[in-house]
């Protein structure tokens, strides 16, 4: 079966500085892939390359069997959607209007919104549990609510692949857990493939099918969550020692913070 996303030897420089070097991996239809790695390891650039937002120098990216460069923007948007890193200022749109803008690739320039677009928006709001504040404007929402709305808009786009850039980094544990639940629901019940850039090692290990880790623009690890938590793997990714413990519910390994040395 052709993978939904196939990345081979992706190499990308920005302003002469090498950012990604020969990165290769695949994402299957319906797979949940978490992307880990220290700051500056190229995770964001990787997502931007996959969305065609920055050109890459070498390698190839194939989406649903076709080269990324063969897609027109609209066609690409119907297949893959993107939730960028939390942005400071949000425009004054209402949540409903903003999510409806996710339907852009499905609208022809001269038609207005159709009932199927409204239905897609309703589904997206429901799936992300954001219909409660559909009539509020984005700047009045909290960070967690806003993140859920950005995911709703990406969902309304109707894509089979959802790329997220650190959706939970600035959220408290409750809101982070909500976003995690939303993503799991989309992946499990709606069959959306997810590529989720995150710093949350435990959540990545517990809730993804596979994990990709970058270090200095190269693939440092690509495999299942169990292999990720094997001795020495995280150390080689982050360059620091980790303490492991068994998860109280299922006994799977998780990392725990060290106590500061006196």
């Amino acid at each position: 079966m052709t993978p939904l996303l196939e990345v081979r030897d992706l190499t990308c420089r920005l302003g002469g500085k090498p950012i990604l070097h020969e990165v290769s991996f695949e994402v299957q239809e319906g797979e949940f892939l978490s992307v880990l790695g220290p700051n500056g390891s190229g995770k964001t650039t990787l997502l931007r390359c996959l969305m065609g937002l920055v050109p890459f120098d070498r390698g190839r990216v194939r989406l649903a069997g076709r080269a990324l460069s063969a897609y027109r923007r609209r066609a690409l948007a119907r297949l893959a959607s993107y939730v960028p890193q939390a942005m400071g200022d949000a425009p004054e749109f209402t949540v409903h209007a903003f999510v409806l803008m996710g339907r852009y690739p499905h609208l022809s320039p001269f038609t207005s919104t159709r009932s199927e677009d409204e239905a897609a928006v309703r589904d997206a709001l429901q799936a992300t549990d954001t219909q409660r504040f559909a009539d509020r404007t984005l700047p009045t929402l909290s960070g967690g609510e806003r993140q859920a709305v950005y995911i709703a808009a990406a969902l309304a786009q109707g894509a089979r692949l959802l790329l997220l850039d650190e959706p939970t980094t600035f959220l408290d544990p409750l809101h982070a857990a909500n976003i995690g639940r939303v993503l799991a629901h989309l992946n499990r019940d709606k069959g959306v493939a997810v590529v989720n850039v995150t710093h949350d090692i435990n959540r990545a290990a517990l809730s993804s099918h596979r994990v990709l880790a970058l270090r200095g623009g190269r693939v440092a690890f690509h495999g299942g969550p169990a292999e990720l938590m094997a001795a020495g793997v995280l150390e080689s990714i982050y360059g620091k020692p980790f303490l492991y413990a068994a998860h109280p519910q299922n006994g799977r390994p998780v990392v725990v913070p060290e106590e500061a040395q006196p």
Partner: protein
Amino acid sequence: MRRFAVLLVLAAVALAVLLGAPFVGPTEISLESVLQGPRAGGAARIFWTIRVPRVAVAFLAGMGLAVSGMAFQAMFRNPLATPFTLGVASGASLGAAAYLYASAALAVAWPAGLPVAAFCGALAAVGLVYGLTRLRKGFATDTLLLAGVAVAFFFSSLIVCLQYLSDPFDSFRILRWLMGGLSDTVGYRGVWTLGPLALLGSALIGSFTRELNLLTTGEDLAASRGVAVGRVKHLLFFGASLTVGGVVSVCGPIGFVGLMSPHICRLLTGPDHRTLTPATLLFGGAFLVVCDTLARAAFPLYSRLTAGALDYTEVPVGVITALLGGPFFLYLLLRGGRRAT
């Protein structure tokens, strides 16, 4: 639907302003005399050959400046962007200043020379900014903004140079042109020059309302939603340049309309460009007509005293736009604005 109510009110106001403004001015004009047609002479002649074209140019200019400002504000995601941000006005001003200087020095005068020179200057500025940005590959918004500011400064110093070299009278003519205004509009040449440019440019901008909405959420997000960001930005840039080039070549740089009209309309209709665009077109047009009518009517005595001598006794319309628009805008800001739709 509050937004449509606002649009309807704006349309009614614009219509009333367009119909009423030509009757205001130093000379009393009655409806009966106007109906005799432009050949009747006297008041009817003033009405048809001075007032009507002037009101038409004011509306087209206000409309074009406002909608270009709106497009730039969305494109650059910068509330302080104006139609002149990219140096179009300083280019046009340099063209006009160069023409005034050269025609005085060479003692030649060509009636259409000033607007043509101004338009060429505007195009030169746009071309220069655009070329500079191309050199650096890509079409990065920040680069474009900075290049515009740099070119504007450069051209402004050239204008100061020309003023310094000119004799006081020509220097004042240059200064007066830099203030912008509509008092030189006589006959329909301005309408035929500005009309096609402003309408074409505004239509081009108006055909991208969904894209403008998405651009205000960020370029990456817009691109990921399927907007061909580069192509759309080129066309918006082109449309705004056509419009603003046309406006400055006919009226000189008139400030404030392009900066404030989109903000005022955003407070009235919300951020959705599908209603914001028509609102901005109507508001900008009507606003400049009102300001120009005030400029024309508020000092009738003063201009009557010097009638036949010099025509720059009218207050430049840019002064009125700022005097009127500034407090109104502050009022809207302080009231907190009815955000959302």
